[in-house]
């Protein structure tokens, strides 16, 4: 074998395809209907699955994994902006959950518990990772075409519509990365995952007031970044 030539550490990733691709029929078709990760979980079902897992039924934990993977994927992905890191973290989260589920007493819901693990592991990971220069972004799923707000944004006249929506989305991702890890976490949980303030405060173990103020601050930051882009559209 030839002497391994040193690999360039900054892995060049293909540029993410965004709305522009969608509009030119670059859609990815799916065999299965998209799981709606945003519906609130059924906590009584979770309680059952947890006790069955604790009783030794291996298949029960599998069901929890299947149920929570899409939701947790979204959470971790939007905090890390990287598919590979998300995959690794997701594996570690479930691994940790599996190891410690014996001691889970049900003081909080399983939903809160596993989201705590996910958020905390991800924040620790981000601290270690530091700044990453290349994002590995997932593509837009075809389901966005049915999204009410997407249709609104592209139909009504608003500052959003005037700018190129796909470029805007790219800037938004960049802006997200500029936020501190903690701020990105609350933005992800509230706006993207649709979690209520109360739930976020339980997960982060901070007061609801803190959650609200972090959201307010983060939102303001994002607005500023996007405005800057509008004024100086140089890449």
């Amino acid at each position: 074998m030839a002497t391994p030539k040193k690999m360039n550490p900054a892995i060049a990733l293909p540029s993410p395809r965004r709305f522009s691709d969608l509009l030119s029929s670059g859609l990815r078709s799916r065999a299965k209907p998209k799981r709606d990760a945003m519906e609130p979980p059924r906590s009584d079902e979770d309680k059952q699955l947890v006790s069955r897992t604790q009783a030794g039924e291996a298949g029960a934990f599998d069901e929890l994994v299947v149920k929570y993977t899409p939701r947790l994927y979204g959470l971790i992905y939007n905090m890390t902006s990287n598919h590979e890191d998300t995959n690794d973290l997701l594996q570690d989260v479930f691994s940790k959950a599996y190891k410690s589920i014996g001691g889970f007493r049900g003081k909080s819901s399983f939903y809160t518990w596993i989201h705590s693990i996910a958020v905390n592991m991800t924040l620790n990971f981000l601290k270690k990772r530091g700044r990453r220069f290349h994002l590995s972004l997932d593509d837009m799923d075809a389901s966005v075409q049915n999204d009410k707000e997407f249709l609104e944004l592209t139909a009504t006249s608003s500052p959003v519509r005037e700018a190129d929506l796909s470029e805007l989305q790219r800037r938004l991702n960049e802006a997200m990365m500029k936020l501190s890890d903690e701020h990105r976490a609350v933005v992800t949980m509230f706006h993207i995952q649709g979690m209520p303030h109360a739930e976020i405060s339980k997960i982060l173990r901070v007061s609801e007031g803190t959650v609200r103020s972090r959201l307010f601050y983060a939102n303001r930051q994002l607005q500023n970044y996007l405005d800057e882009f509008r004024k100086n559209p140089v890449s």
Partner: protein
Amino acid sequence: MNEFNEDDIGKLLRLKRHEQPPPGYFDNFLHEFHRRQRDELLRQPLWRICLQRAQDFMFRLNVPGLTSYPAAVTAVLVCAAVISLKVYQGPGIEKVAVVQNPTPVVASTLPETAWSLSSPVATRDLGPTLLRTAKYSSHTHRAATPPRYVLDSTPVSYEAAFRF
């Protein structure tokens, strides 16, 4: 004064829900999870695996009292005694140094919760035999589903340290 108001930001952010991993990702996830668990299990030292197997065996006998640590240790010691007796009685077999495994490789760099002997669940072996007895949840497998097309995102094993 911002051109983008809170509402617009919220809408744009919500659209990110539609950024999804490649097709088939979720289908394959559980499989990779099991594989990782098995890999981690196999990296444990021999004595720990024996202990888990003994506890497992007792558990399957449905005798809760026997799943305790002392019972499991006794079982392992008895088995080891029987086996070593057989070994020593074997014709002309040299005594071989019993391997003392070096510190088990830590599979993950993230901090792990301590392995608890009191929770049989935490040591549950994810081996094929157990999993086959539990029917896989119906909402992911129906008669008409195509087979899982295999191509993992990481190789099955890796080296955690520089040793040989």
